[in-house]
């Protein structure tokens, strides 16, 4: 068991380090100079060289690349990612400042998405009408195929501009989070629902269900008591993908609804080649990603006895 934990933890640490190094390399391989992006692009050729030098010095961009890497890595280990090139604020506080907004949005969207996905799977499994099943089973692919951008704007047109039920932008109070929640939940619900529909169908035709039938259990009872429990477990395995969907979706949702958050911060940091900020965000996301996967890896044997047997056997 200890070896299993050590292995998984080591892999998580490697992922975070690799993410840090890769962004560093990418940002330095990119042709644009981050210092140039601090000036008005149309006035670039009139910026005196000594000014450019002074600005580069301010951010340590003049040091040898390897030294910069070591310097940044050393500081990063203590949680210090330096200051944003664009705003001058410490990276950690820039991220922490917008983090609650994104957490609230993604946690809410996740709950909504899971409820919707379970609902879809339950309806698809329990219905006896083939056409209802077909319609419901088509929903997840639909949810995955509609771009967040489009669904966001459509939702806004109807519920904000036409009906005036919810504010169109900003984050004043709970009413303003409703539309972003729905927008973000749609693409996140898609893959979960697809997986659940499939595993519900598989479990529904497995041996223990036949036994339950034989014992005289009702259709509803079987689905809720036996199938739901066993079929939900695989959804955990795509927790990483779900997290990725939440992050990607939040970039667009936050932009369409003009909310502050990690997504918009990321987009802006990349557009302006804000090296320290991009690195801070990437490491933050990588750490979250690694932690989620680690958590799933560690908790899975506890939930699924079959996995426990595999882990025991490895000892």
């Amino acid at each position, binding site marked *: 068991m200890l070896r299993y934990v050590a292995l998984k933890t080591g892999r998580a640490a490697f992922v975070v380090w690799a993410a840090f190094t890769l962004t560093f390399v990418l940002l330095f391989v*990119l*042709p*644009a*100079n981050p210092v*140039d*992006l*601090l*000036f*008005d*692009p*149309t*006035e*670039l*050729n*009139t*910026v*005196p060289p000594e*000014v450019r030098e*002074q*600005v580069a*010095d*301010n951010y340590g961009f003049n040091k040898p690349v390897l030294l910069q890497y070591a310097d940044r890595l050393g500081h990063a280990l203590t949680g210090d990612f330096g*200051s944003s090139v*664009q*705003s*001058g*604020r*410490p990276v950690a506080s*820039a991220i922490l*400042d*917008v983090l609650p907004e994104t957490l609230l949005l993604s946690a809410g969207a996740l709950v909504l998405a899971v409820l919707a996905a379970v609902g879809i799977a339950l309806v698809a499994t329990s219905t006896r009408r083939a056409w209802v099943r077909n319609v419901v089973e088509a929903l997840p692919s639909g949810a995955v195929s509609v771009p967040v951008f489009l669904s966001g*704007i459509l939702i*806004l*047109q109807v519920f*904000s*501009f*036409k*009906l*005036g039920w919810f*504010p*169109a*932008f*900003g*984050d004043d109070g709970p009413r303003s989070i409703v539309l972003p929640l729905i927008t973000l939940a749609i693409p996140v619900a898609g893959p979960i629902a697809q997986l659940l529909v499939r595993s519900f169908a598989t479990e529904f035709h497995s041996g223990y269900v036949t036994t339950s039938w034989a014992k005289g259990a009702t259709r509803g009872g079987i689905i809720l008591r036996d199938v739901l429990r066993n079929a939900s477990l695989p959804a955990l395995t795509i927790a990483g993908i779900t997290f990725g969907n939440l992050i990607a979706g939040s970039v667009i949702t936050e*932009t*369409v*609804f*003009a*909310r*502050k*958050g990690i997504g*918009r*911060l990321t987009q*802006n940091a990349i*557009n*302006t*080649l804000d090296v320290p900020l991009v690195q801070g965000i990437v490491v933050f996301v990588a750490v979250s990603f690694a932690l989620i996967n680690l958590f799933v890896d560690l908790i899975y044997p506890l939930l699924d006895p079959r996995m426990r047997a595999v882990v025991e056997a490895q000892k």
Partner: protein
Amino acid sequence: MKIERIGMSDLRSSIEQSAPTRRKWPWIAGAAVAVLLVAGIGLAVGRGGSSAEASDDGTPVRGGTLQFALIDYQRSPDPQWGTNYAESLIGNNITDKLTWQDPDTGEITPWLAQSWEYNKELTQFTFHLRKDVTFSDGTPFDAAVVKANFDQYVHGDQKLGINPNGASLLPGYLGTDTPDQYTAVVRFAKPLASFLQASSFTANAQPGFLSLSTLKLSSAERADPKKIIGTGPFVYESWEQQVKTVLVKRAGYHWAPASIKHQGEAYLDRIVFNTIPEASVRTGSLVSGTIDATLDVGTTDEKPLADKGFTIISRGVSGTSIFFNFNSQLFPTNDIAVRKAIQLGWDRDAITKTVLTDSYSVATSVLAPSVSGYADYSGSVLKYDPEQAKALLDAAGWVPGPDGIRAKDGKRLTVKLLGISNLVVNKPAYESVQQDLTKIGIDLQLSVVPIPDYTAQVAKAKTDWNITAANRSRNDPAVLNLAYGPQLGNASFLTADSTGIDVAEVSATLGKLELTLDPAERKAAAKAAQDLLLEKYALVSPIYNPAQVIAHADYVHGIIFDAQSRNHFVDAWKSDGK
């Protein structure tokens, strides 16, 4: 509110209409007519009501909050820093400048400086300051403040993490002397006629005055808007990165520029600058009444908004037009015949009709018409004359190939252009030029890319790109020297061995713009500079004049576009005062 209600009835009627049955249609039509009638009456009553309150005589109403929308957000509340519109626009309303450039005449007029004089060499500018100006924390505005601001603005402060934001606006700045409390003498190493205009500059990284306590703050500490103290008509209430900035009026303000007729406190109690990146959300919010006004109105949104009763106001960006700068070193734009053929080879009417709105115009010089010294070249080289363009190319030995594209000594007439996609008009305008040039045998290849990619490519422009397409915002003819001066921007990459170009002549002609402030002499210098760039050496083909466009509700009044096309709200008011 009224508008919202109309929106709902529209939807209701459309829902009703969406389930028609044949027998019911007369009834539905009747209902629709009734709904429309009610809506129309509601609108008329609403309008009538508001215009009655709005005091048709134009007497401003005090009070109220203006909800304003724009694309960008302020990355820091520090106004001396910043490269986007949100940053410069908000900076203009919390700080003041030494002088005010009249947006109509281009004349430099008094503001925080009551009067000024300069030496004959234009290396020393003496400003006599107003004595009644205070910062919002009560401290006085005086010569020491001017010195401290300019020093930090030009040199930056490494310890505080402050960049030299003003170094490119004030090249050769030596220092500021303070012979008495209200006199500031700004000294330069070289003549700098354009400094007078720079003292009024309201665009990116502007010289707006901050209190001594603000200047002592590090860049991180300047993230607290309450600590950013200016002398302007508004003060910060809050700043929420990515979301909004809220300003409230400064009590006791009474030093707005004399050419704004209203010098006293702002009429509005509060302005909320909402950042809304999505165009459809900005216009939707305006139409639904959530916001009162929005900047960054797209060309395709102007007419629909005007049809709905919203007012469109705009001002052309002062400085250069959007230009095609030719690389004078690189084949084939090192051939003056090619440069001249491009100037003549595209149809101005086509762009006006298909791409531009009334807020924009086709360029008739490299300077925008609002810049003093502008001259009109639409009668000479900046006109569509494909026959003359072909004749020029024929004479220079460019022979049409099998696909219609010309070649000379086996080399195709392919011209590579690098542009920025930040303005929506750019790409369609360039594509229109591209189509026309193909007809005369020039293959114009477009790379119109986002800002970071553009920035990366500009570094290689000398060897890789025949044309760079951009503009420069600076309402002073010396912008030509900044952009094209061989020792400065050198946008055409002139060197001693540029084919057929006398570089010394270009340096001298453009440099003259910094040597005089005499209006007649400056006008002559500006004309000479334009003659050289457009006619004699054909170093640039100006395309169109960009504009800043605002759409606002009919109850909003008095939004000012200044000489740099940034907005001031000291004179703005709402009819309902809410």
